[in-house]
């Protein structure tokens, strides 16, 4: 059963086998009971799966209801950003992704006949990070690796071929009607996470809007398997001889599969474009006539950028593509969605435990709408640059490209995709604004930057010390931490304390031998950072003050 049957086709011989999952008849069908879960997740795409695993890290019970019986098919996400890998590392999935994926940090941009790039960009601005700027990996692998984590997380389960067909968003619970091949049943939850993709049936059931723009253009996307020694770099062409007047892209994936995009324009005969001979001709024009290749998948896409007005609707919360959809040129779809998960799960946990008031969930709206706006803006601008809407914008676009051959300034205007970066969450109501002098680099709202450290003589990474709980980071000149600093937080809302020091005699503190943490965090002895469970900075001071920390903690938890 194809998940996205309408978006393409594949030659069965060339196609990689995608994993399928067995249908197990839910006990509720025979018992007739309405089981209750703290959280039900509709949709087992990357966002729903990550939500379930993250919740179980907090000890929250959940179930994933997935309509189909297989991981994603078709040509979907390939580029996973550094921040996504950091988040999935907290969940335990990144190691396999990086092992299987293709690491890349650079993009090259070409224009016209020129065989040399008109410019190159490097996406890893801070070096010495655990993860690269990006890896490329077929979306279904990421899904498989997340699914493989389920057996070791008994707090959650996946039910395949369980389709959500009805929701009742009640005052004290959501009741969900589920259809399966063995019959229907009802189940209920405190919160329903609607991660049911861009066509979101749940959004439709609630009659909610999903508005934005359709880009009047078509892109032929082919995943081909071939042995080629092209570099593992995102290579992008404007107006190449093999696709005149249009753009093209080639990018390496795992298993010797390459993603090739051809912009094909708006007024086309879709069937004609998709004919095998015509696809062959395009690929041959690009790759030459002697390379042997097989098709994994070929599809023709039209792209949209849309989002919901609000993501939180009482007890139903939208995450991932159901909440926001972007054109893929910035790789901001799944990467944005994984950040939704990171932002939402700790808040759900605190609200379910009664530690934070339900209004903390409104900050998911504040913070992730801001992020979605950024993603929509950047993706729209890239798409506009590729598909100029008028003669004058085409003239500006081509002038920019010609100037870019000669001048650095013009290269800054060239927009072949602004690739996913984490949202800074500036202005979030959860941030405590700085009152002391600090550099901007790690201001409140930003996710923490990684750095190599050592603990008890062993090499480690800073980010692996953070997450799931609030953490206070105390920068110490001698590795000792005054008792009063450890005594923040409460039993219900614990704050772990980490001590960072440059000196080697720090006991079990984090040794910042290279001083990179001190540099990134503009830290001096005495500096104290309060970090959220999603590794974003909540507040920071030059000097620890218990009252101020308590206030910041209250603020960061919506109290």
């Amino acid at each position, binding site marked *: 059963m194809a998940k996205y049957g309408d978006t393409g086709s594949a030659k069965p011989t060339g196609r990689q086998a995608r994993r399928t999952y067995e249908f197990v008849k839910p006990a509720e069908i025979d018992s007739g009971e309405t089981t209750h879960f703290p959280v039900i997740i509709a949709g087992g795409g990357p966002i729903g799966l990550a939500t379930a695993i993250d919740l179980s890290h907090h000890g929250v019970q959940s179930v994933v209801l997935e309509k189909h019986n297989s991981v994603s098919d078709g040509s979907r996400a390939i580029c996973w950003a550094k921040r996504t890998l950091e988040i999935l590392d907290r969940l335990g999935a990144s190691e396999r992704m990086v092992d299987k994926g293709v690491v890349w940090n650079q993009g090259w941009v070409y224009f016209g006949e020129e065989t040399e790039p008109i410019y190159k960009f490097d996406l890893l601005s801070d070096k010495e990070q655990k993860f690269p700027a990006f890896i490329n990996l077929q979306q279904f692998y990421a899904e498989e690796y997340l699914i493989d984590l389920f057996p070791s997380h008994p707090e959650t389960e996946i039910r395949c071929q369980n389709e959500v067909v009805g929701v009742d968003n009640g005052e004290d619970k959501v009741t969900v009607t589920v259809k399966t091949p063995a019959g229907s049943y009802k189940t209920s939850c405190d919160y329903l996470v609607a991660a049911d993709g861009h066509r979101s049936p749940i959004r439709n059931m609630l009659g909610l809007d999903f508005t934005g723009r359709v880009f009047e253009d078509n892109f032929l996307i082919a995943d081909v398997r071939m042995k080629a020694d092209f570099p593992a770099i995102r290579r992008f062409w404007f107006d190449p001889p093999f696709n005149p007047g249009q753009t093209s892209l080639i990018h390496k994936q795992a298993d010797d599969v390459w993603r090739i995009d051809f912009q094909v324009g708006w007024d086309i005969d879709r069937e004609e474009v998709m004919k095998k001979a015509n696809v062959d001709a395009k690929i041959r024009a690009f790759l030459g006539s002697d390379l042997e290749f097989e098709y994994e998948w070929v599809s023709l896409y039209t792209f949209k950028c849309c989002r919901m007005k609000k993501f939180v609707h009482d007890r139903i919360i939208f995450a991932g593509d159901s909440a926001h959809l972007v054109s893929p040129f910035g790789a901001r779809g799944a990467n944005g969605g994984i950040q939704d998960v990171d932002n939402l799960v700790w808040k759900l946990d605190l609200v379910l435990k009664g530690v934070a008031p339900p209004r903390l969930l409104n900050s998911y709206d504040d913070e992730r709408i801001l992020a979605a706006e950024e993603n929509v803006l*950047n993706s729209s601008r890239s798409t506009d640059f590729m598909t100029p809407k008028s003669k*004058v914008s085409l003239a500006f676009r081509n002038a920019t490209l010609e100037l870019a051959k000669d001048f650095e300034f013009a290269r*800054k205007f060239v927009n072949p995709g602004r690739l996913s970066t984490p949202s800074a969450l500036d202005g979030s109501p959860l941030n405590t604004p700085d009152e002391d002098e600090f550099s901007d680099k790690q201001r409140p709202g930003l996710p923490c930057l990684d750095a190599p450290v050592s603990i008890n003589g062993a090499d480690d990474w800073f980010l692996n010390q953070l997450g799931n709980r609030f953490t206070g980071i105390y920068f110490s000149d001698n590795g000792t931490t005054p008792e009063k600093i450890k005594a923040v937080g409460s039993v219900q809302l614990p704050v772990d304390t980490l001590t960072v020091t440059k000196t080697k005699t720090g006991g079990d503190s984090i040794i910042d031998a290279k001083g990179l943490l001190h540099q990134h965090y503009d830290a001096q002895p005495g500096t104290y950072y309060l970090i959220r469970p999603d590794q974003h900075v909540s507040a920071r001071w030059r000097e620890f003050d218990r009252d101020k920390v308590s206030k910041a903690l209250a603020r960061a938890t919506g109290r």
Partner: protein
Amino acid sequence: MAGKLRTEPGVDNPDDFYARLIDLHEGLSSEESHKINAKVILMLANHVGDTEVLYEVLEYVREKGTG
């Protein structure tokens, strides 16, 4: 270019500026677009003032053709 013209990046948010520039033309006819482009050039030329710089630009764009 070896002249006085500065060609290193100078606009602080290139994507914002580019989008504003393109939006400026939204809904205009090609004639109207030409006219506002001309106005933009003249105003910026006046701001720059230094004719050595201005002539350097004119020579460059003409030399590189209109293609």
